[in-house]
């Protein structure tokens, strides 16, 4: 089986199990809801709460450089230390954290393929014990804008820059404003960015949470959708964490050198005054 463009971006559950007590890396579980971690987690893993710790508490933005430094110092991460991330939701939030670590220049980061689900489905051990942590003096680099798309760049790129909308087909068409199982109040308008291709994020993952093979991913993004690795590409979803998962696929597995995550995503774009929107779904008369 052919290798991913950056196979070192992933480690397997086997690898983590084998190296758990080496002391050669920090293991961190990233969740939207840390209840699961509080109950049990992989031995030695610390936690990161996606909303409370990775987001600015007031401004809609991820935590800034100084907040990131304080956070990683508190978690006991040393500069350049290997960090292995995993989490629930098929690694949604850990993929977001991976992207975010890359933004602040912590390059020595990997995802555990399959996340928490794969570990559990393999019947591996979990513990409720929290690791002891010695604080460090972590120094981040300045934020790297080359992997993040902001609003104005997205507006300027409509119809020109290849974009991947990783939401469900019903969100993409404008039938729904949010995933079918969540409250439907979200952006002001439904639909998608004109010209964007729809590749739901989940198509890149197997049921056990691991990423699909290189051949399957190539077929999905390149053959079926015509995405070209050499093009600058932007991935988006609703609030930017599903699209981080796809950003990881395009960048690290397929080797697209110039791909950005638009973390403002549809909750930003779909509420902007005057921007073009493609709405495929038409309400039937009388429905």
């Amino acid at each position, binding site marked *: 089986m052919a290798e991913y463009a950056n196979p070192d971006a992933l480690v397997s559950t086997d690898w983590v199990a084998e190296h758990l007590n080496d002391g050669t890396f920090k293991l961190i579980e990233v969740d939207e809801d840390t209840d699961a971690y509080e109950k049990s987690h992989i031995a030695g893993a610390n936690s990161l709460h996606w909303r409370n710790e990775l987001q600015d508490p007031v401004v809609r933005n991820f935590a800034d450089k100084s907040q990131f430094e304080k956070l990683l110092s508190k978690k006991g991460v040393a500069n350049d230390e290997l960090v292995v991330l995993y989490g629930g939701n098929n690694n949604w939030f850990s993929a977001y954290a991976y992207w975010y670590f890359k933004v602040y220049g912590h390059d020595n980061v990997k995802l555990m393929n399959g996340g928490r689900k794969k570990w559990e489905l393999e019947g591996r051990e979990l513990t409720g014990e929290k690791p002891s942590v010695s604080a460090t003096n972590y120094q981040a680099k300045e934020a790297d804008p080359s992997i993040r798309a902001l609003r104005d760049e997205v507006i300027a790129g409509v119809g020109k820059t290849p974009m991947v909308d990783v939401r469900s087909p019903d969100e993409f068409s404008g039938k729904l404003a949010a995933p079918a*199982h969540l409250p439907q109040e979200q952006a002001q308008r439904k639909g998608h960015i004109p010209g964007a291709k729809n590749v739901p994020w989940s198509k890149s993952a197997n*049921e056990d949470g691991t990423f699909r093979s290189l051949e399957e991913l190539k077929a999905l993004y390149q053959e079926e959708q015509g995405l070209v690795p050499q093009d600058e590409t932007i991935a988006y979803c609703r609030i930017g964490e599903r699209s981080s998962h796809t950003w990881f696929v395009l960048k690290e597995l397929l080797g697209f050198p110039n791909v950005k995550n638009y973390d403002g995503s549809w909750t930003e774009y779909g509420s902007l005054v005057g921007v073009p929107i493609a709405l495929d779904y038409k309400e039937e008369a009388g429905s």
Partner: protein
Amino acid sequence: MSSSCVDAPDDYVGETSIRGLVERDGKPVEGAYVRLTGSQEEFVAESRTSEDGSFRFWVVPGEWTVICLAPGAERLEQACNLDKGKAVDVRFELFPAGTAAG
């Protein structure tokens, strides 16, 4: 039967949901993964069963498939058709992977 999907009792009228139970040897299974997929095998949501083996998805009406994954157990799935204002109950009875349904 390893899985079944039935209309929930009348007191669920007005809610649109899929709720269910995962059991093994008649006992509730906590922490089983339950996946909700749409009509084109499109993944919608995933949940884990609570201590009492239960799970619940709130969804818009339509055709859904619920898939159950648990360590050491055969993968199970159940299709459900959800009308507006109704709810359905799904039950999964787990059995060891690689064996035929009991």
